[in-house]
């Protein structure tokens, strides 16, 4: 048994970490929990918030860095290794009864590349970037294009206050 294998406190289970301060992340985590619950023989997925204690997170896996965990989705595998980003999402799909029927597609190789995994990686990156638009109180607006998009959305969705910056002029 390797050192990393000793670190996973739930042998045989995959531990999915999510940002508990982010509304859209909580919604996705709740869906994963619901989708994984009815598995025969018990769920192979444990879904838990990252939390705020770097030491507590390291107890799960010594190489887990809390900054990294917040920046990208992490899935701690039963052998102690970790899958990140789109790879983690694909692994979650493989472990849910309702999604595993199509999850094989992410392993398909064409000329040495995995095109469907690449699409999933890209989709994950976009979702991670637009979280502030979807309701993420903790992650801020880190990318300029998201900031611009948020300003655009806010312009049309913010409450209209007469005389305020966002008030529409009556013609």
């Amino acid at each position, binding site marked *: 048994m390797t050192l990393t294998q000793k670190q996973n406190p739930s042998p045989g289970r995959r531990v999915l970490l999510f*940002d508990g*301060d*982010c509304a859209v992340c909580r919604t996705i985590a709740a869906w994963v929990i619901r989708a994984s619950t009815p598995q025969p023989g018990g769920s192979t997925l444990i879904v838990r918030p*990252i*939390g*705020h*204690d*770097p030491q507590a997170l390291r107890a799960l896996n010594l190489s887990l860095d*809390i*900054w990294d*965990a*917040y*920046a990208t989705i992490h899935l701690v595998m039963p052998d102690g290794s970790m899958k990140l980003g789109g790879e983690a999402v694909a692994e979650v799909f493989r472990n849910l009864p309702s999604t595993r029927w199509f999850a094989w597609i992410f392993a398909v190789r064409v000329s040495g590349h995995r095109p469907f995994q690449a699409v999933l990686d890209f989709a994950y990156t976009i979702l991670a970037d637009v979280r502030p638009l979807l309701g993420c109180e*903790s*992650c*801020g607006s*880190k990318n300029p294009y998201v900031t611009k998009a948020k300003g655009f959305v806010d312009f049309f969705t913010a409450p209209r206050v007469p005389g305020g910056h966002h008030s529409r002029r009556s013609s």
Partner: protein
Amino acid sequence: MNISSAADSLPIHDVVKGTFASLVLGGSGPIVVEFMSYGCSHCRTLEPVIERVAEGLRSRETFYRVNVGMDRELADRYGITGTPTFVMFSDAREVGRVVGPRPEASSLSRAVTQPFER
């Protein structure tokens, strides 16, 4: 080098609700407290900059870090509405604060030293 001396050599020290009164309010000299959270990407961007600035100012100012995710009460007490927020203390009194400074050593250094020069 043992663990405590390794911690002492760090330019920024962690402070929690239980130690805030003795270390920050009871501390001597200029004290800078960073209220941060690990979920905040700007805090991550600033982290290496703060360490550099704190190292450079080590002889003049003491730097502490409050993890607001663990210490909501402290954050509420000081009216922290966003991270990172730097609050400067002198003789147990707040003398200045800066919210979300630019991740540049020169501007951050200026922001955390100016309040003590008034």
